[in-house]
């Protein structure tokens, strides 16, 4: 038995651009007439020039039990690749083979019908996702229990809250038992709680024996956590493939837009601007130190009462602030002069991941939270033990000491 789960050879997908998605009869007629009369200089030729290759020369192999992250910028061809692998659309060139039963979760709750009850929708959604009716039946109680909507299972889904709907849908999806799971990050929309649940479930699935995962995401943290291998797509071509970490590093290096650790001449409002806002490094090791520098400018007299740094995690939750109030700040009433604040954060305790940094400013003419100004990555510190996955480690790492005495 082959231990290759997915083998892709010279895969390509071409789209026509500029052309109406589903043709109308008139343009088709003129196409036919042109073909019949041998007139090749008509609209046909113009069409071929508008081709667009969403994917080209894609070659890779995924072994059984591997979790592979597909990364790349928007429009790099990630979703097209998933659509081809999950057979939603067919490739223009090349071939691929898949050994094993595939389930693709490109969106939870596909095919839910509002008029049907929760019970009926479980059967409907389960069979749409490729389960047999008896498989759904066997897992029915488990699915219902996991979703937590037992009481409303015979109520039409249209009366459900959106949260209940999502829980029910995810619960069905979570109980599929495919050998190969194809997941798009759209799965990870929803509230923070739901995202965590999805990522947690995937992490669990990926650790099970023999389960192959293809995962598309912008969330490097999730990719690093779940996947062992990575494929970096750029403009429809494979730019890099290798281990997950190598691929991510390559991606971050290539894509300069990802580096957000400095900002210059950023207009906060009509009076105030941020002349400079920088962090000394984009990648910070856990418990490492980092320098910051803020330079504020105001065109008119504008006394500042407070400034604070705001830290947000990937779920847009504020997890920490640094209070930069100072009596000297009070004395400055900027009128063309600059306010320069610089400092160092010692021993940054955030768990690995991407954090966005904002500023809170309170002054006469400029007040408010200015979020998403910078981004930093916290990367894992070297340690003797393999760290637990990020999703079980909470928000901050506590510095601690302990001893185990085996003689007592």
């Amino acid at each position, binding site marked *: 038995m082959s231990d290759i789960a997915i083998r892709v050879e010279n895969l390509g997908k071409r789209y026509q651009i500029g052309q109406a998605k589903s043709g109308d009869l008139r343009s088709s007629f003129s196409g036919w007439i042109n073909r019949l009369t041998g007139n090749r200089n008509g609209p046909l030729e113009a069409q071929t020039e508008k081709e667009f290759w969403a994917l080209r020369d894609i070659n890779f192999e995924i072994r059984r039990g591997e979790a592979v992250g597909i990364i790349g910028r928007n429009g790099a061809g990630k979703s097209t690749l998933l659509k081809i692998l999950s057979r939603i659309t067919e490739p223009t060139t090349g071939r691929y083979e898949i050994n094993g039963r595939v389930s693709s979760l490109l969106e939870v709750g596909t095919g839910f019908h509002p008029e049907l009850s929760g019970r*009926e929708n479980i059967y409907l959604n389960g069979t749409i996702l490729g389960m047999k009716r008896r498989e759904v039946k066997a897992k029915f109680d488990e699915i219902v229990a996991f979703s937590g909507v037992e009481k409303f299972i015979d109520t039409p889904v249209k009366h459900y809250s959106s949260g209940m709907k999502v829980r029910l849908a995810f619960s069905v999806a979570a109980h599929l038992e495919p050998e190969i799971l194809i997941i798009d990050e759209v799965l990870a929309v929803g509230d923070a709680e739901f995202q965590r649940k999805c990522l947690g479930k995937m992490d669990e699935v990926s650790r099970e024996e023999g389960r192959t995962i293809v995962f598309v995401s912008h969330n490097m943290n999730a990719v690093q956590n779940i996947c062992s291998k990575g494929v970096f797509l750029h403009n429809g071509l494979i730019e890099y493939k290798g281990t997950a970490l190598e691929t991510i590093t390559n991606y971050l290096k290539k894509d300069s837009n990802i580096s957000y650790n400095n900002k210059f001449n950023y207009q906060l409002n009509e009076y105030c601007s941020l002349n400079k806002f920088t962090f000394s490094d984009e990648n910070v090791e856990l418990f490492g130190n980092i320098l910051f520098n803020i330079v504020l400018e105001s065109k008119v007299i504008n006394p500042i009462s407070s400034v604070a740094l705001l830290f947000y995690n990937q779920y847009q939750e504020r997890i920490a602030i640094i209070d930069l109030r100072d009596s000297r700040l009070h004395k400055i009433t900027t009128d063309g002069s600059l306010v320069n604040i610089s400092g160092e954060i010692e021993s940054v305790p955030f768990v690995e991941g991407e954090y966005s940094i904002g500023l809170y400013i309170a002054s006469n003419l400029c007040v408010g939270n200015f979020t998403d100004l910078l981004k930093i990555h916290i990367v894992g510190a070297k340690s003797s033990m393999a760290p637990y996955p990020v999703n079980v480690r909470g928000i901050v790492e506590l510095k601690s000491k302990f001893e185990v005495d085996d003689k007592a």
Partner: protein
Amino acid sequence: MQRTVVDAGKGKLSLNLRELLHYRDLFWVLAYRDLRVRYAQTFLGLFWAFIQPAATLLIFTVVFGMAVQVDTGGIPYPVFAIAGMSAWAYFAFVLNQSGNSIIGAQEMVKKIYFPRLVIPLSKAVVGFVDFVVALLFMAVLMLIYGVTPSVNIVYLPFFILLTIISALAVGIWLSALTIRYRDFQHVVPFLVQFGLYATPIAYPAKTIIASLPEWAVVLYYLNPMAGVVEGFRWSVLGVDALSVYSYISFGLIALLFVSALFYFRKVERVMADIV
């Protein structure tokens, strides 16, 4: 271990019928969904499946039975008409439903793989419930008017099957064509209305054969349901033996059905991209 191979250069002509069988559960579940949803929150429920043919029958009886006095070969007009109408109503239903069926299911089509043929096929099952109601209605009318079924009734299952195949043939063609050319959304209602009169439902087929020139009769039987309705009535009531022309219809059904499967397969390849 399930093995899937997709090759852009090959398999253009394979219909993948085995895979279709694999997805039969989905097919039943979709049909069940449509049935449930159709009569959800209606007061009369399945009774609507009876009201529609009954209303048309009433009009036909007044216009063609009483006013025009069509020659039915001694059969009470309501029985004569319903024998043709039950098959036609099913055909019309499947046409109406399957034409828009893929567009209606586009959320699924864009997100999940399954043989797309399941969608129009499930519509044929949904319509079959109404078909059965109409057949029962016919049986009741025959009882009321004291019409005994002819011995030809042993052929009825064959003509029921032929009705289904002919509805599917046209339905599958339309569902694939509508994806490509939305113009067909406007064509279908027109086809159904036109077909109601271009099919021997309200009148016997022999009137057409007797009064039209031969080329027009051939044209008339290019309507697949012309032969089917004629055969349907022959098997139930025993009047008007099948004309030779009806074999034009039967041949056309076979041709349409096979070509529909292949054309659908061709469109299926790009369905998610153009829907």
